[in-house]
């Protein structure tokens, strides 16, 4: 099962749109693509779009935690939206909700990042 990764920059916020399944098999390529994009653009405000992610296990938690550690030293923030029920359970179980803002949708994630969604 492949994972498709697309990036989108909205002001100073990097959106990581994921589609497919996040497991150990795709962890390395996700880590690499995410780091390349984030460091390439020097953009450390990240929004993860899980709307089209059907599955994620602890390997995905590892990748997110790894990026979090790189972002905190650079005044970055991470928000997420679109998680299904099981992924959300894993997310809370791992304590990620304490360091990553769980939002309901793209607009809420953007406004958490301080981007004025109504001005557009």
């Amino acid at each position, binding site marked *: 099962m492949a994972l498709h990764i697309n990036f989108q920059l909205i002001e100073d916020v990097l959106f990581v749109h994921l589609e497919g399944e996040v497991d150990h*098999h795709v962890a390395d390529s996700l880590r690499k693509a995410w780091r390349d994009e984030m460091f390439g653009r020097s953009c450390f405000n990240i929004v993860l779009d899980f709307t089209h992610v059907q599955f994620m296990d602890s390997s995905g938690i590892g990748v997110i935690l790894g990026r979090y550690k790189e972002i905190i030293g650079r005044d970055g923030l991470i928000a997420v939206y679109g998680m299904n029920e099981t992924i959300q*359970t894993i997310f809370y179980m791992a304590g990620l909700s304490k360091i990553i803002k769980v939002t309901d949708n793209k607009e809420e994630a953007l406004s958490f990042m301080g981007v004025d969604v109504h001005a557009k």
Partner: protein
Amino acid sequence: MRNEMIFSFSSKSENESFARTTVASFVSQLNPTLEELMEIKTVVSEAVTNAIIHGYHEDASKFITIHCVITAHKELELTIEDEGVGMDHIDRMMEPLFTSKPSLERSGMGFTIMESFMDHVEVFSEVNIGTSVKLRRKLSLVKPVFQ
């Protein structure tokens, strides 16, 4: 009626999705809820990933075996086995956030997830012999529209 399945596959990360999908297909005959299926897929993925990374150190020439049983009481019993390096401090390995491979960005949440999503988790392991993870889960019995 009791039903059983055994399958073995190469210790390759490509097979993680094959393993969890295969178990999910087998479990489908119990008419599980979507959430139950997702949770079962997750625990299979955790145990298989552990076997590949920790049991076999990613040696693709080795095999992982999964034994699935649906008991007469419609309980699911899963055994995920490897013949890898094994471990001698099982209790420590099962603690939340423990990982022997922090450099690989492993979260150390595998066993915690297995324990949360299953009713019963048992780990048998012997150094240089291998590891066997036994998982049990009673599924909700929703009456199907068609049988």
